[in-house]
């Protein structure tokens, strides 16, 4: 293994984010071509199934990751799953996704009357919601996950409770969506 390959391996090991070839070249004071060669060496050594760590090419550069085969053991050693109570913002956001899914990020904001970035992000990190594509306009679209159903003890989405405290309950999904949007717009501009 060349000195440069060793250094590149060390850099990828230390960096919490993927590193671009250009940045590796700057840090190692080598050319991008030399770095690419070193990456090729590493790619062989760290191919899937060879070691506990694999080399991945992801958007923006290269990164080391643990071999997926070790996931179970890693979970036993390190997993610290968190299920703290939901905040009001999270509960509202989650209920919108649950009842209207698939639903886009701007739609959530329109219904809540406020941007809901951080609630969406937290729910996604905890695995309660997940991206299920993009809208025609490029906005992320969300749906609830299997984990969501487990954590709420639901056998299926049809087991979601009727929107309580509201009478009359909307008849169908389309009516629900329309009424949520209308109420949200009224909240946004009193």
């Amino acid at each position, binding site marked *: 293994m060349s000195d440069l390959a060793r250094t590149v391996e060390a850099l990828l090991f230390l960096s919490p984010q993927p590193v671009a070839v250009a940045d590796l070249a700057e840090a190692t004071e080598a050319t991008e071509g030399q770095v690419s060669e070193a990456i090729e060496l590493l790619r062989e050594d760290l191919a899937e199934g060879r070691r506990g760590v694999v080399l991945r090419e992801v958007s923006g550069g290269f990164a080391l990751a643990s071999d997926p085969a070790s996931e179970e053991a890693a979970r036993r050693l*390190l997993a610290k799953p968190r299920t703290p109570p939901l905040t009001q913002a999270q509960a509202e956001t989650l209920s919108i996704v649950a009842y209207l899914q698939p639903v886009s990020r701007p739609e959530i904001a329109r219904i809540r009357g406020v941007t809901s970035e951080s609630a969406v992000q937290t729910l996604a990190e905890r695995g309660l919601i997940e991206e299920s594509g993009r809208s025609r306009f490029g906005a992320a679209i969300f749906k609830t996950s299997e984990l969501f159903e487990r*954590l709420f003890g639901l056998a299926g989405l049809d087991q979601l409770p009727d*929107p309580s405290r509201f009478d009359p309950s909307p008849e169908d999904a389309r009516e629900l969506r329309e009424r949520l949007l209308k109420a949200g717009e009224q909240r946004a501009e009193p």
Partner: protein
Amino acid sequence: MPVADLDLDLDIFAGPFDLLIAVVLREEVSLLDLQLGEVVVAYVEHLEREGELELEVATEFLVLIAALLELKSRLMLPGPETELDELGPEEAVEELLARMLEYRRYRDAAAELAETFESQRGYLYRSAPLPAGLRRVAVDAAVAVYDPDQLGTALGDLLLEPADVDVSHIRPTVSLERRLRALRDALGRRTNFDFDDEFGNEDRLTQAVTVFALLELYRKGEVTWEQSECFGPIQVRKILPG
């Protein structure tokens, strides 16, 4: 200012107080040669310059200077016949010696530790968040911890349309100027009109201010009006110039 930083300029030593104590302990300066009175004077001068007494710093100074005085007095006292002191100079020397030796042990260990630290500084450890999969509950291990009713309630709240805003507490403002303009507009359209026809739909306040505006126009000689009976209709008529 911590007492350690107190700057001293003595006969046999110049530098901060903590360095003085360090060099005394390292016996680079003999406690016997040191005029502790000078140290006290320097401290008092410092206090005068600062103009305020920090109790904690003063206490620290007293403790340290007292310890030095005690050690020094033991070194200087002649013999065991002194009844005032339990320790003779020899014991005092032993005590000071024990403290110096103890200090030296850690000073030398420190040198070695600093070297070790130096030699280990090149090893860097990874500091990265756990992959997302390890931060969330595994689907297989997940049990119900949340109440679905929370979602129903949250959605119910979102469905509620906000009630119409009650503005009854807000008093409308009616400006005389605007009423003057309204009157002149009306008089621009025709030379006479019935007040109720023109302003009957306005609220009471607006009507009252309009009457007030009418008085103003009357004063200026722009209009006149007639009312044949009490609470009867008011006929407003424009006075044409000339």
